[in-house]
């Protein structure tokens, strides 16, 4: 029961700072930002900060196996309902537990925003790997990705598809569906 601690120490300011960092990361795909202040059982600090900042009782969440320790924590801090992959707005977990991408909502032509965002825990997050181009990237950027083929397939569905956030410790990088993934 005692693992309910670990919310933002200063909710208003930390929340605003985390929101700004997440916004920045999503607007500039592949850029690695640091989000601190949140600690949850079963989630990395960065993923916990994403949950505190973006999830509330109107945001259905899917918790993959391995992240289920965060269930009580998310209920206490965010009040999120828990659903399965096909209905979630946010999914938390490791890539092996979240993959494949097919069950998640990818939006519709009228409402491409009605799609899921995957918050994927990775072991390493470095600026090395496949070449990224697209909106928010001046020329090219590189980022270590868990499964290049699946993510390339997701990008090919644009303007539909899921958005991906990669978290490692307190670091976070985003890969929205608009980013085209080239070769390493």
């Amino acid at each position: 029961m005692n693992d309910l601690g670990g919310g933002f120490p200063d909710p208003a300011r930390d929340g605003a700072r985390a929101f700004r960092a997440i916004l920045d990361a999503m607007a500039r795909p592949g850029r690695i930002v640091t989000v601190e202040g949140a600690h949850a059982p079963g989630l990395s600090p960065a993923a916990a900060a994403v949950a505190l900042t973006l999830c509330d009782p109107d945001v259905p969440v899917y918790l993959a196996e391995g992240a289920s320790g965060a269930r009580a924590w998310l209920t206490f801090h965010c009040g999120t309902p828990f659903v399965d992959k096909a209905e979630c707005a946010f999914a938390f977990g490791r890539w092996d537990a979240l993959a494949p991408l097919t069950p998640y909502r990818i939006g519709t032509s009228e409402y491409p925003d009605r799609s899921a965002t995957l918050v994927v825990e990775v072991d390493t997050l470095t600026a090395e790997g496949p070449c990224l181009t697209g909106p928010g990237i001046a020329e090219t950027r590189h980022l270590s990705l868990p499964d290049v083929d699946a993510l390339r397939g997701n990008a090919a569905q644009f303007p539909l598809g899921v958005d991906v956030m990669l978290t490692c410790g307190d670091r976070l990088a985003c890969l929205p569906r608009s980013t085209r993934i080239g070769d390493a």
Partner: protein
Amino acid sequence: MERREWLSILARAPHARLSALATPFARQVRTLRAPETGSVMVRGRAGGTGAAFNLGEMTVTRASVALGDVVGHGHVQGRSKDAAMAAALVDALMQGPDAAKVRAEVLQPLKAMHTAANTTRAAKAAATKVDFFTLVRGEDA
């Protein structure tokens, strides 16, 4: 006493009295959720079908603390952060070994106070009661 009952007593308690009564029980607690003030939509039911309607918003302050392995939640009317922390502490203590003592020294006085206030108000209202009756009308005689 069920948890909902003591949470209800704590939520309605006058802030100063609640804080004063809880002072002797002050413990080292870990704050899970610092006191925060917000508004809550109070819903009610009326009419034959019992459909819910929004009665209005009220200001509520909430806090959560951990006392060892026990988690206490406090919700109080108004914007007193001290009262919210006191309510959370009392909730945590009520789930622990000190429950009987806390019940006798904090909850019973608050409950008695609430009952007394209700009785006084009911008595005042009863004093203004008007009985309506129909006089016997001529044609019925």
